[in-house]
């Protein structure tokens, strides 16, 4: 552009494009050359900038991918993240396939993801998996490439990707980029499979110790009531009515009491087993603490007898986002313990207090309290303060309580109160209560 401008303004005749002077012609020539060189140079700088921008983008992409993947908890999530990133960054449909226990590859989702590739050739995928190599299958319309997701010689799965026309991974840079991409995915899968292995090992150890403790619990705590039941009932059956009506009633009472104790024990053991096996998942709903306390007290009506129960629940407590059945079980266990381990007729207090972001529920009694230093121990599985006491129990009640409260994101602990007995404190998180504004109008 500068050359014609020069000709027009500066070279004689001014205001014309004609150039007369040789000098000016040379000048113009130099100018054209300089302009060309600079524009070439600029272009190269632009290109460089473009490339580094692309690189930056890719680095960002990889960063985002690794961020997303680090939050993934299972294969499904990895698949979802990978597929959506591949679509966003390469504009390609893809799918991740994972092997089952018999090393057969399967789609990870029942429902296809948004940008998930369907109708791939599972046979070729299987080949990729078994032979540890990339296979490109050219179909009439498009080509699908199968990449093994490999880490430390172990293939975690296969990624099948359909490249659209013109977006092939031709440039070496893009290939490196894609490799890194795959590497990240493989790494995440490896991490997941290692975590799973570790968890399994832990679970196995846990199950083993639970099984042992269960066996000993059954041998003692279930046998004792059984012995009494068998004793009483054989007396009744074999006596041919030799006993007085009063004695018979006594025997029957023994049978009833012991059977009830056994029933209680078995449900606790089963609950614990289910909780340990991860079978009990809190089914959370909006619940009123008042109702749960009321229901627990109602359930224990017979055991409570005339014992004074003092409930101190403030009005207008917020609703709690909890599993009502499980939390009721916690309260029932705590009240039951208070009944068992404190003198008959001594009061039990149940109260609640709203704190910042949480609700503190306390159950306190007027017994002897928990021996110092044992405040944490009582929550251990199968731990009992007096193992041979006549009070039936397997030492699971408090363990269950803690497991349930922790499954709600809360805490439970015990303290001794001066001049009073034990004080159990449960803290449960408070959630934003649901809106009730539109209620009144609707129902009336």
């Amino acid at each position, binding site marked *: 552009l500068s050359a014609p401008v020069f000709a027009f303004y500066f070279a004689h005749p001014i205001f014309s494009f004609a150039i007369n002077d040789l000098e000016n012609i040379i000048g113009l020539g130099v100018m054209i050359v300089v302009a060309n060189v600079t524009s070439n140079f600029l272009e190269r700088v632009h290109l460089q900038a473009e490339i580094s921008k692309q690189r930056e983008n890719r680095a960002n992409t990889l960063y985002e991918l690794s961020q997303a993947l680090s939050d993934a908890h299972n294969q499904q999530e990895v698949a979802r993240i990978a597929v959506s990133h591949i679509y966003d960054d390469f504009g390609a449909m893809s799918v991740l396939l994972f092997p089952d226990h018999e090393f057969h590859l399967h789609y990870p989702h029942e429902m296809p993801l948004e940008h998930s590739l369907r109708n791939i050739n599972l046979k070729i995928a299987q080949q990729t998996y078994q032979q540890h190599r990339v296979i490109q299958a050219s179909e009439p319309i498009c080509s699908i490439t199968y990449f093994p997701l490999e880490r430390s010689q172990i293939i975690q799965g296969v990624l099948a990707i359909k490249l659209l026309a013109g977006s092939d991974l031709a440039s070496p840079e893009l290939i490196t980029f894609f490799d890194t991409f795959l590497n990240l995915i493989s790494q995440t899968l490896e991490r997941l499979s290692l975590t799973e292995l570790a968890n399994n090992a832990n679970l196995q150890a846990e199950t083993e110790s639970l099984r042992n403790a269960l066996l000993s619990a059954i041998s003692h705590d279930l046998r004792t009531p059984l012995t009494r039941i068998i004793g009483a009932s054989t007396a009744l059956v074999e006596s041919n009515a030799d006993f007085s009506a009063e004695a018979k009633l006594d025997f029957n009472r023994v049978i009833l009491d012991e059977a009830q104790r056994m029933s209680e024990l078995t449900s606790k053991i*089963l609950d614990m087993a289910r909780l340990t096996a991860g079978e009990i998942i809190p089914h959370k709903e909006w619940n009123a603490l008042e*109702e749960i306390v009321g229901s627990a*007290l109602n359930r224990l009506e017979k055991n409570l007898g005339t014992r004074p129960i003092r409930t101190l629940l403030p009005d207008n407590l917020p609703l709690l986002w909890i599993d009502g059945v499980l939390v009721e079980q916690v309260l029932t266990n705590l009240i039951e313990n208070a009944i068992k381990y404190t003198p008959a007729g001594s009061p039990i207090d149940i109260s609640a207090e709203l704190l910042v972001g949480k609700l503190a529920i306390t159950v306190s009694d007027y017994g002897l309290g928990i021996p110092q230093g044992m405040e944490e121990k009582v929550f251990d599985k199968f731990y009992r303060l007096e193992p041979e006491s006549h009070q039936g129990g397997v030492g699971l009640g408090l363990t269950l309580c803690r497991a349930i409260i922790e499954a709600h994101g809360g805490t439970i602990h015990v303290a001794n109160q001066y001049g009073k007995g034990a004080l159990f404190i449960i803290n449960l998180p408070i959630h934003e209560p649901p809106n009730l504004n539109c209620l009144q109008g609707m129902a009336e």
Partner: protein
Amino acid sequence: MTDEIKPLILVIEDDPQTRRLLKTNLCNRGWRVIEAENGKSGLLLVKSDSPDLVILDLGLPDIDGISLTKRLRQLSDLPILILSARSQEQNKIMALDAGADDYLTKPFSTGELHARLQALLRRVMRTMNNMEIFQTGELTVELARRKVFVAGNEVHITPIEYRLLSILVRHAGLVVTHRQLLKEVWGGEHIHDQHYLRVYMGQLRHKLEINPARPRYLRTEVGVGYRLVDDEETNQCHF
């Protein structure tokens, strides 16, 4: 209850020992009992013998309790009492929502069984007699005038509270599930909005109960629903 014709109870239960125990117990109370060991023969007996009440075990080998409840409901309006194990919590609620009237969790005492059966038979009597005044303990509900009294003093309750209370009165002594209450008061699209119930039942408790944290009339069955305690039951539970 009329003495001339003793109620006929159908027990559908696959375990022979439990069946035997139930039969001995019920006959001892003067009730007549017929038995079925599976759902299919139970359905046939309902058609042929038209019993007054069905005791239905949830764990039958041939038909699951929920579909059996539905089929029984299609046949008749007879009261259904569900027997469930602790592990069948969810099925129990589904059976109640499908039309069963109440439940007992195994193991249960004879006393509990009789209380439930009485309450169920009373419900039938009430619907036949078109009850006008309901009374339990110190609580009186005048259904015709829509008025509520506690110890002789009128209590002012809002229309929604009254609707909840009247449903519970209609099922006095029996459990009413969350779903039933939500559906009847707020309509079918609100069956999952349990917090509505919590709030209004709370208000009702505070108006009718001396200690709402240890209610005498409006009992909560956590995870299932609510039960309005019936007079005779109140006497049985030592108050």
